[in-house]
């Protein structure tokens, strides 16, 4: 009864906190708090999902990301500001400290307003580069919205991004039954470094390019910032501690105006709606740990041999033992933990390693419930003794990093654990040889003791 009550209590608290898996305190930084009216639908969606939103301007004295060394907020959302810097409370260093403390940041930039210097500095630490002089506008003369940007071509219309590569889960593509598109007005493009932590969500189309609208409105200079697919319009970084930062190149795409806008492609016949609202929900949900969060429920390993004990998680195994390893994982989906399914063409891999892996094996789902999936595998331990780790190092784009290490000793065969010689068929001639020698010896002794010499032998001996 008590366990049932506590379970129900746990369930209620879980429902009450049905929001992000890592806290609900959200700080929104705007030039002017009144500006939030532009983004009322986006911010309303966030509040509707359970975030406690605090609005601040960079100039505010009360703004502080840390209090007594602890984060004051779980997530930060930046909208474009006019000022060159963001003041002493939001320096690049503080933003990076916030990420190091596992805080998440969603950064909305605009091609019309210069990006703040502290943001540019923080981004360059993460190997995300903005155009020089912090201004750049992405245009595409082939994929623009005819309705609103017939002359300037700076409202990009893009299809939903789809999966990044085979084997990567597609979190960010809303359904588009009527050919709905994403509209990115006045976007600033980002150039990404080669690091594995950076993942673009949305790239510019092949014919898009970035230019400086102040200096290059007539003719492009020699230094092209980037063009085509090298330009990332929505970029994510997931740090090693699984803190997330997302750069949205177009803050305007989050405004109410573009949530409901009707747009028309260059060759399109009819106007179509935008899917900005759903896309914004998914991007913000991913950044604020509402989706793409994995959790390890338990890990278990045991001997898988007949006639041997199957104690859970023993500290020691013998070389060449058959062993079963299981891990239970859950994935957070908006407001609850659900069973984690490994995407097609991807695998959850177990490494059995001493310094370097001796075995790297794919785990297969064995038991699936509503809240978790158990993945397991059976394998024979390597023929080498030592201190080994069962290691799960699951790092995938858009999923938080899972690193689990369980250390076990692997010992030699004991002297009485080797197979007996009669069990080895190759030894049978030698065993029968020993038998023959023993019988022959007993026979020889009997002959020597009890043989009566024959006549011939006697005559020889007496002679």
């Amino acid at each position, binding site marked *: 009864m008590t366990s049932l009550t506590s379970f129900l209590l746990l369930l209620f608290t879980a429902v009450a906190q049905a929001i992000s898996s890592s806290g609900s305190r959200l700080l929104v930084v705007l030039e002017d708090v009144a500006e939030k009216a532009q983004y009322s639908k986006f911010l309303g969606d966030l509040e509707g999902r359970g975030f406690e939103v605090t609005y601040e301007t960079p100039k505010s004295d009360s703004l502080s990301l840390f209090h007594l060394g602890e984060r004051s907020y779980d997530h930060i959302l930046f909208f474009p500001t006019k000022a060159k810097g963001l003041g002493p409370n939001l320096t690049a260093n503080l933003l990076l400290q916030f990420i190091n403390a596992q805080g998440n940041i969603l950064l909305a930039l605009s091609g019309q307003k210069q990006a703040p210097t502290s943001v540019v500095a923080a981004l360059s630490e993460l190997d995300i580069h903005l155009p020089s002089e912090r201004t750049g506008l992405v245009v595409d003369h082939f994929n623009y919205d005819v309705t609103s940007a017939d002359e300037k071509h700076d409202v990009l219309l893009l299809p939903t991004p789809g999966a990044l590569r085979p084997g990567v889960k597609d979190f960010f593509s809303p359904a588009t039954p009527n050919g709905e598109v994403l509209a990115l007005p006045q976007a600033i493009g980002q150039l990404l470094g080669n690091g594995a932590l950076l993942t673009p969500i949305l790239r510019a189309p092949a014919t898009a390019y970035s230019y400086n609208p102040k200096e290059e409105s*007539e003719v492009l200079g020699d230094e092209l910032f980037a063009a085509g697919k*090298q330009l990332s319009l929505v970029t994510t970084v997931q740090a090693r501690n699984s803190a997330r930062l997302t750069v949205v190149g177009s803050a305007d795409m989050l405004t109410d105006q573009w949530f409901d806008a009707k747009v028309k492609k*260059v060759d399109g016949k009819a106007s179509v709606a935008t899917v900005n609202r759903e896309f914004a929900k998914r991007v913000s949900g991913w950044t604020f740990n509402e989706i793409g969060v994995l959790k390890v429920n338990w890990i278990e390993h045991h001997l898988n041999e007949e006639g041997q004990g199957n104690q859970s998680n023993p500290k020691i195994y013998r070389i060449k033992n058959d062993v079963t390893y299981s891990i239970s994982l859950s994935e957070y989906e908006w407001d609850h933990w659900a069973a984690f399914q490994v995407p097609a063409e991807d695998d959850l891999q177990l490494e059995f390693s001493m310094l370097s892996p001796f075995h790297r094996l794919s785990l297969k789902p064995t038991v699936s419930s509503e809240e978790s999936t158990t993945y397991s595998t059976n394998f024979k331990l390597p023929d080498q003794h030592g201190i080994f780790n069962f290691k799960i190092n699951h790092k995938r784009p858009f999923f938080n990093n899972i690193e689990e290490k369980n250390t076990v000793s692997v010992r030699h065969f004991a002297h009485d654990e080797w197979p007996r010689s009669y069990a080895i068929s190759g030894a049978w001639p030698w065993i029968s040889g020993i038998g023959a020698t023993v019988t022959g010896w007993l026979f020889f002794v009997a002959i020597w003791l009890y043989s009566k010499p024959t006549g011939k032998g006697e005559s020889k001996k007496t002679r």
Partner: protein
Amino acid sequence: MRFLRSLVPSLLLAAGAAQAASSWGFDEATLAVGSKKADGSVKEKFSEKSLPKKTVDFGRTDTLKIILTAKEGGKAKRPHQAFLTLQEPETGLEAPFVFTTKENGKATVELKHSDLPVQLLKSAKPLKATLTLASFGSSTGYNNRIFDVEIRPDPLAVPPVYEKPLRYGKLEEIHHIFKADPQSPPKVISMVFALIVAAMVPILLIATFALGGNVAHLQKAFSTAPVSHGIFYGSIIAMEFVFYMYYSTWNLFQVLPVIGVVGVVSLLSGSKALGEVQGRRLAGER
């Protein structure tokens, strides 16, 4: 995008002059590939309607230069976007090169091997060169593949090194063992040899008896010294039994005391039994 690419030329061809009024194009284009020192540069004139058909060879010391006149609706004009994009066909990696444009629509681009990223230099297949001419306003842009470029690396030079960047994903499976378990030959062969060895015992028995071996003195020996003979021979069998027990179950500490007991027994009984044998020898019966 693919749709657009296929659309633009078909529009140009089908609609012809009517469409040309509001679309970008080019004319009087020259493609020159060669090294500056030697005059052996290959020049080829082409236009929108007659694109170069052959794959362009781009050697290590060569300069690839394109001069063209951009036109909007048939009139020479400077476009905002004038790019030559080289694309690696397998990975889809692209490198854009910006034309230097003049007011009268004249556009020039010049590139050397050192301008190309290493991924393109290492391409095994010819690169696709795409020309993009477009600008603000309502005119349709020009965006078409115009020719292919084959990169000819210098056979003497060190090939460029490119290391693929790390991307998180599943890795190769590993199943490493140092030494495979030892294997026995087929059981039939072991069985045959075991039987051959075992068959030696009856052969030994038969051969011994055939050569005159016998146990005729058994009765005599046992009537003279029954206890000592019985115990002596029994102790020899017992010793073999101890060895068998050591093989199957006992450990050394169980075996040693038993061997001690059996050994003393055979020593004591043996001196009596062998004395009897000696007696037979002295009596001339052996």
